[in-house]
């Protein structure tokens, strides 16, 4: 018995990576902004959304991990094989566009977090872009994954930062389990935003590809599922501390809107240099992390789906399209941040709209694929799993479309 448990733990550590990294990257610059905004404006009120977010994430991510482990193929591979080239091309085009705006947002996060430490953006952004590019081109899958797992640890910044602020823990705990609905349009927008931005199409592609790349098979699937769940839970725990920190630091002294995540860090200054520095460092870490993963994941998914050679272990000559796509996403994503007066906010809203088109497609494809017996064998969804999956998909699509509406309103209005 003891031996069995020990073996399970040993396997758990060999499968650690995909689920954890995916969930943590979800707390990127955009995510941190949304959570900060929630805390700054509504205090502890929105904390109850975190548990359902974790649940929705687990439901969708588990299917990806399962498909990856059983078929040994990435999501874009499966879409290509089952739905043909045209559909794949359409999905990939949208994926490139949404991920591109995400890359931009995260380089903006790098710029604004380092500006808090008086590093001008024309220094920080090119350096960050070069570092990100080199990391993947010169690294191997193993070393890159280790660095990424290291980056996950840095999210502890937010926990410490929140502890330093000494928020109202009692209220934080009680709000976490108490759903609050108000007919305030801004509040509804916020709740939709919290859930809607918590799940993005790139996560499905990245997680499944990472599971395949790591060589996780059916026999390690049980441990891999635990890893996915632990990752999703950790992610909302971090989100919890971000919201609580902003609630304690900003909302408690007068609720207000914030413009970006760096403003939230600035508002933490009265609580001592550490709270501020940790919050800003957390933002930098998250932005860099996401800026490294997104271009890589995009290039992989596109090349796999369209049948081009891909992989960091291939040379530039062997996999030209892979490297070009990867390089362009970084260069352009970082480049536009340096253009004065670039309409970044508009681009991010646009990305929400594209996201709203892509996510429903991806989720529906996923549930269809996971139900194909010739692919999944005995691992197809059970009837109960299907009911839960479709319910989650319908909720997510509903919220995403609502977010599209809001984004369109903001863009045009």
């Amino acid at each position, binding site marked *: 018995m003891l031996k069995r448990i020990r073996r399970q733990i040993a396997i758990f550590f060999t499968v650690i990576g995909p689920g954890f990294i995916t969930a943590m990257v979800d707390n990127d610059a955009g995510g941190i902004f949304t959570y900060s905004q929630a805390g700054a404006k509504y205090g502890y009120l929105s904390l109850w959304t975190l548990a359902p977010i974790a649940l929705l994430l687990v439901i969708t991510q588990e299917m990806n991990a399962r498909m990856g482990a*059983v078929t*040994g193929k990435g999501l874009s591979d499966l879409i290509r094989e089952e739905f043909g*080239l045209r559909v794949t091309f359409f999905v990939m085009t949208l994926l490139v566009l949404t991920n591109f705006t995400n890359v931009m947002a995260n380089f903006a996060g790098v710029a604004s977090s380092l500006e808090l430490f008086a590093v001008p953006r024309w220094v920080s952004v090119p350096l960050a872009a070069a570092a990100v590019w080199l990391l993947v081109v010169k690294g191997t899958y193993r070393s890159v994954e280790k660095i990424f797992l290291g980056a996950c640890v840095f999210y502890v910044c937010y926990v410490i930062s929140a502890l330093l602020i000494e928020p109202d823990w009692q209220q934080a705990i009680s709000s976490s389990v108490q759903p609050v609905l108000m007919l305030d349009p801004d509040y509804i927008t916020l709740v939709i935003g919290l859930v809607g931005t918590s799940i993005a199409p790139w996560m499905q592609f990245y997680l499944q590809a990472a599971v395949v790349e790591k060589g996780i*098979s059916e026999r390690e699937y049980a441990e891999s599922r635990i890893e996915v769940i632990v990752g999703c839970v950790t992610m909302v725990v971090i989100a919890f501390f971000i919201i609580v920190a902003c609630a304690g630091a900003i909302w408690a002294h007068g609720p207000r809107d914030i413009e970006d995540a760096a403003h939230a860090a600035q508002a933490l200054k009265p609580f001592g240099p550490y709270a501020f520095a940790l919050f800003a460092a957390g933002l930098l870490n998250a932005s860099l992390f996401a800026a490294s993963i997104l271009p890589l994941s995009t290039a992989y998914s596109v090349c796999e789906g369209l049948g*081009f050679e891909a992989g960091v272990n291939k040379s530039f000559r062997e996999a030209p399209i892979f490297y070009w796509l990867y390089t362009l996403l970084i260069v352009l994503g970082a480049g536009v941040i340096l253009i004065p007066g670039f309409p970044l906010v508009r681009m991010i809203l646009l990305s929400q709209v594209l996201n709203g088109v892509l996510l429903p497609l991806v989720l529906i494809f996923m549930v269809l694929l996971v139900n194909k017996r010739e692919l999944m064998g005995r691992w197809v969804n059970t009837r109960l799993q299907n009911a839960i999956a479709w319910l989650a998909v319908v909720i997510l699509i509903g919220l995403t479309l609502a977010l599209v509406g809001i984004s369109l309103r903001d863009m045009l209005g």
Partner: protein
Amino acid sequence: MEELLYFTELVGLKVYDLRGRRIGRVADAALVPLIDPARVDRYLVGGGWAWLTVRYDQIRSIGLDGIHLQDERLTPYHDDEYMLRIGRDLLDQQIVDVDGRKVVRVNDVTFEIRREQSAQVLRVLEVDVGLRSILRRLLQGVLPRRWIRRIQTPIAPNSIRWEHCNIIEPDPLRRLRLNISYKMLEKLHPADLADIVEELGPEERESIIASIDSEVAAEALSEVDPKTQASILEALEAEKAAEIVEEMSPDEAADALAELEEETSEEILEEMDAEPKAEVRELLEFDEHQAGSLMNTEYVALNENATVRDAVEALQGNADLLETLSAVFLVDEEGVLKSAIPLGRLFVAAPGVPLRELAAGPLLRVKATDHRERVFEIFDKYNLLNLPVVDEEGRLCGVITADDIISVLRNR
């Protein structure tokens, strides 16, 4: 008159009967590889409610303007298992490019139009990958066929000759019916085959390893990373797995078995022949941090009084070892290691010279129970190609070679 036709052009092509009336449009085309590996045997034509089958010899002419029949006795379509349907079974799937030694995804298929007696037939010429064929797929049915041809010309074609394409089919029965074999794969370098195997999904890779020659499978499997190795061995029948493991060198076999669950590795060991089984079992006894877990039990040991002539004779009897051998060892009556002779020195010595005189400097060796870090240190310090391993009494029990060290260090 065109000589080539793409599958993207064939699909949707109008089919006319003898009097020039339109019957329907081509929906798919199929080969029957048991009869002919490249000729399109039948065309599936959609018209009205059901699909019809047009046999290749019923077609008078075929081209961008349509298909004209010379015989209109068509039969309704029914699926049969000897048919490889291009649209359904080939397009968008992964196949192995044996010439380029990689896995590719099929975007389109190029046919050659040929005349066979009174009929015009299509023969598969190439499988298309790359940008040009993606463009054709995207524009298919949107723009006229001739326009698409003109638009694609600036893009360089990227195709694989049909003879070099190896379809991977996990179902053995279907493989037989479609006349698919993995013979071409056996000729690849084991390292290339390993790369290909790693790129495929579990079902496909297991089917390849299970059906190719055990010796080739063992060589390829030795190059695959340990995790994939384990999942492949686990999926195979114990008997087949044992056959492959027997062909692997004992240290690699032991490493592979150590990755498996105890129950499975026991099952495989049970199926193995007595001699390799004993060797592998012995190696499995060692903890993975001990020198013994790195060693190989295939080596050439001679009596300490042997001459160069004896050594050459011994090597002739062990021809299969020669590829990786870099030294022979001298032992006394008890099997205690006395000295190591670098293989190169045998070439420049007279046949009658006692081997003892050719021994390399001080004798380096490790105990099987030594920590493997010590092994790495010695290899590094003395720039070794091999290092003998002895037991507590100093008797030779194995050899660690540089390639074992490299793979251990690389996997860190």
